[in-house]
């Protein structure tokens, strides 16, 4: 079977070509068949290859398939080849698996859209690019996929181009990603310059000799690559495009802007873990940026009222976790969280899509409420997703998040401060997610009657993927249970061959020696679960119970229920002291830091360029004599330079 590896990305490409070339000429069922079928075949192939890989002995689990030599010139050699190893195997399963479910979901979600064919064309192109990205055996091919997914993201954000906000959001995503790509490209050039190859296997083998571990060049290289990752994976300061990207269709948000594409940065860093292991400084920067992004985005998420924006900030925050994991050299934990996050975040987005479907595209959660009884399947799946993301023990999110927190605390590269940041983020996450649940599904029904009369559960093509994803969100984490629970961490063993080379590169001894402190691990785990539960409780107080308390208080003004009143005062005080400031702080971060500072900075760059362009244009007066004068000035300068030389 392994000789068919190349078919995994090629199949969606074929789907893209057929749908793209015959756009507008084939009926919808055929589009659906081609669009979903190609991804389904990829998924089947990925699964069989995965099992084949699993059957191999652990240290020979690497299949490299070189299709043809792309460029050879002198010592410069790049092949068009795919690399299947434990890491890319996980990635292709996530991409094709979640991708397939979202394709199916889209059939129901987009069924009324006039751009149905175009949508599936883009989606298949995206799947192709993403698979190329993760299967590439060298940086150059990876960059091809990297640019491809960026392009598809741009096309799909602006899918409803008649909306100005959608077109603007697409543009913003594009510009921000350019900044990231800039870093990636330069970093790639430096790697090539020093190592003489772009092939991952070669780099892993030769980088320790080519770079001085801990030297400034390797740090610069890693940081440049990290700039690329921050752009694609929406980290500080390049995260501003992701919340705006929610202008695209919801399945797109689920697939591209939550489950797969935005994790490409994490994947890239894990892929080049050898390089990062050689630069502790770069790792530290990655960890700091990751931790800060996690808490920063979670804080902003507290005060958002658009259901998709809450989920978007939550995505940014969760990606921060993954980078935190990478930064403390717990690459396995990062990939593990990447996988579980793909399940539950895709689930959450698709469920929110189902909500929007029911709510006639109303996104404001203040105008929802009480949806539980109208769309029960959506509610239950959404709840499962929420429980998973908050890290309720037993669900997938718990295992991955817990591992990251523990590594942040205990790893050689970790620090208790990282743990505290992650810990607080976990609490904030639980709070805003349950706020979302309560405001959307519980409490009074705040929508208008028109919308209310249209409330309905989504069709089967949408609910079935939801149910499957819910199952994955529950069980997906069981492959990576921590040692202290007495289980075997299959996931860690699976990825071990990929990480071994990185550790060998720096010759560290005791990265895995963390299990020695089981008591500490237990207590940290209990603490974080406790915080999550408290946060959920607080959210319940404020977004579910409080309104009832308030009405009760209004009815019984007479003073008989002073106790109740007093309790209410306690709530009030609690709110005034803790919740209100937090919300205001959140609004401050969002309105000032995000929108004004970072956004403004990026827009400012654009404005500066535009103004520069405008003023430079004035030089071009249209008069030949002016041109001749510039010309003569150039001559004078040039002769002067040559005279000196």
């Amino acid at each position, binding site marked *: 079977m392994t000789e068919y590896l190349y078919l995994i990305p090629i199949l969606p490409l074929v789907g893209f070509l057929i749908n793209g070339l015959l756009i507008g000429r084939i009926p919808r069922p055929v589009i659906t068949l081609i669009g979903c079928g190609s991804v389904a075949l990829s998924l089947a192939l990925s699964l069989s290859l995965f099992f084949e890989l699993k059957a191999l002995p652990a240290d020979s689990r690497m299949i490299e398939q070189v299709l043809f030599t792309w460029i050879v010139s002198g010592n410069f050699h790049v092949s068009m080849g795919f690399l299947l190893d434990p890491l890319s195997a996980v990635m292709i399963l996530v991409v094709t698996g979640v991708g397939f479910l979202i394709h199916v979901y889209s059939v129901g979600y987009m069924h009324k859209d006039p751009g149905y064919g175009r949508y599936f064309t883009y989606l298949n192109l995206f799947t192709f690019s993403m698979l190329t990205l993760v299967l590439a055996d060298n940086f150059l091919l990876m960059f091809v996929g990297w640019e491809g997914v960026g392009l598809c993201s741009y096309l799909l954000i602006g899918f409803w181009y008649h909306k100005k906000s959608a077109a603007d959001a697409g543009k913003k995503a594009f510009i921000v990603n350019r900044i990231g790509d800039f870093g990636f490209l330069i970093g790639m050039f430096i790697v090539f310059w020093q190592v003489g190859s772009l092939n991952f296997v070669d780099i892993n083998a030769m980088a320790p000799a080519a770079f001085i571990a801990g030297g400034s060049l390797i740090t610069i290289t890693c940081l440049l690559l990290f700039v690329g990752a921050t752009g694609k994976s929406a980290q500080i300061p390049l995260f501003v495009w992701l919340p705006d990207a929610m202008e695209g269709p919801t399945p797109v948000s689920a697939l591209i802007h939550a489950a797969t594409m935005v994790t490409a940065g994490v994947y890239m860093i894990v892929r080049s873990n050898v390089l990062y292991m050689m630069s502790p400084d770069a790792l530290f920067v990655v960890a700091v940026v990751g931790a800060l992004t996690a808490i920063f985005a979670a804080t902003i998420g507290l005060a958002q009222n658009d259901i998709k924006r809450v989920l978007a900030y939550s995505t940014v925050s969760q990606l921060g976790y993954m980078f935190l994991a990478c930064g403390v050299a717990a690459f396995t934990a990062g990939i593990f969280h990447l996988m579980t996050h793909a399940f539950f975040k895709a689930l959450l987005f698709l469920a929110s899509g189902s909500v929007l479907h029911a709510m006639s595209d109303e996104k404001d959660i203040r105008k929802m409420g009480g949806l539980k009884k109208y769309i029960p399947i959506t509610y239950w799946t959404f709840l499962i997703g929420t429980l998973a993301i908050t890290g309720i023990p037993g669900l997938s999110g718990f295992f991955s998040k817990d591992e990251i927190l523990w590594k942040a605390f205990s790893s050689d590269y970790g620090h208790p401060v990282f743990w505290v940041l992650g810990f607080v983020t976990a609490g904030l996450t639980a709070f805003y997610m349950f706020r979302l649940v309560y405001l959307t599904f519980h409490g009074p029904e705040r929508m208008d009657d028109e919308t209310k009369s249209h409330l309905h559960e989504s069709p089967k093509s949408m609910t079935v993927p939801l149910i499957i994803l819910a199952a994955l969100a529950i069980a997906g984490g069981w492959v990576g249970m921590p040692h202290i629970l007495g289980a075997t961490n299959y996931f860690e063993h699976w990825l071990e061959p990929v990480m071994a080379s990185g550790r060998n590169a720096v010759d560290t001894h005791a990265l895995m020696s963390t299990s020695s402190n089981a008591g500490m691990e237990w207590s940290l785990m209990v603490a974080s679960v406790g915080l999550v539960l408290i946060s959920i409780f607080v959210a319940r107080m404020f977004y579910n119970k409080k309104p009832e308390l308030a009405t009760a208080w209004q009815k019984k003004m007479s003073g008989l229920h002073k106790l109740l009143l007093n309790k209410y005062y306690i709530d009030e005080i609690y709110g005034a002291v803790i919740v209100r400031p937090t919300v205001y702080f959140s609004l401050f971060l969002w309105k000032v830091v995000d929108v004004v500072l970072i956004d403004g900075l990026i827009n400012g760059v654009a404005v500066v360029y535009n103004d520069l362009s405008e003023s430079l244009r004035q030089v071009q007066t249209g008069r030949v004599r002016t041109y001749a004068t510039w010309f003569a000035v150039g001559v*004078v300068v040039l002769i002067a330079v040559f005279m000196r030389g």
Partner: protein
Amino acid sequence: MSLDLAIFVISALVAVFGATMMIFQRNPVASVLYLILSLVGQAVLYVQLGAAFVGAVLIIVYSGAILVLFLFVIMMLNLRSSADLGEPSPPVSRFVKYFVSCLIFLELSFIIRESLGAGSTTSAGIVTMADDSFGSVESVATLLFTRYLYPFELTSVLLLSAIVGAVIIARRATEDELPPQPEKAVGPISQKTNEGQE
């Protein structure tokens, strides 16, 4: 002051004077005449430098043919002095233009001064009397038809394209393109392309 020097000074002054007057005339006819004057001065310098033949060609071809062409065009278009020359550029921009040109002159003359006396063969850069064949018709012709044969042939191509180009640009409009009607232009390819040669 030797005779050589006197001739040099006078003809150099004539050349520079003619050139300067040429660019400041408002009447193009006067400009042409001043340029001819300058060329005559230059031709004398050519002869002094031993390029008698090329100097003669300069007068005959350049003044005799090319500048007459200029005159011819000026007359044909009936350009009076300063018909529509608008307002002069602002002083600052004029200053910049003079300044830049001066810089070019200063740079190049500095280079010439610095290189004075360098080299070996005809050292000190002094014009010495060369053998008689230097600059004669015969030796120029020998060069042109041996080493410079290929470039010489190439000039014929250049002249050909100049003729074709001048004709295609300056010819009067043919009947099919006279009225600038865009609608008409959409028609089939068939065109009377060959009419209307003046």
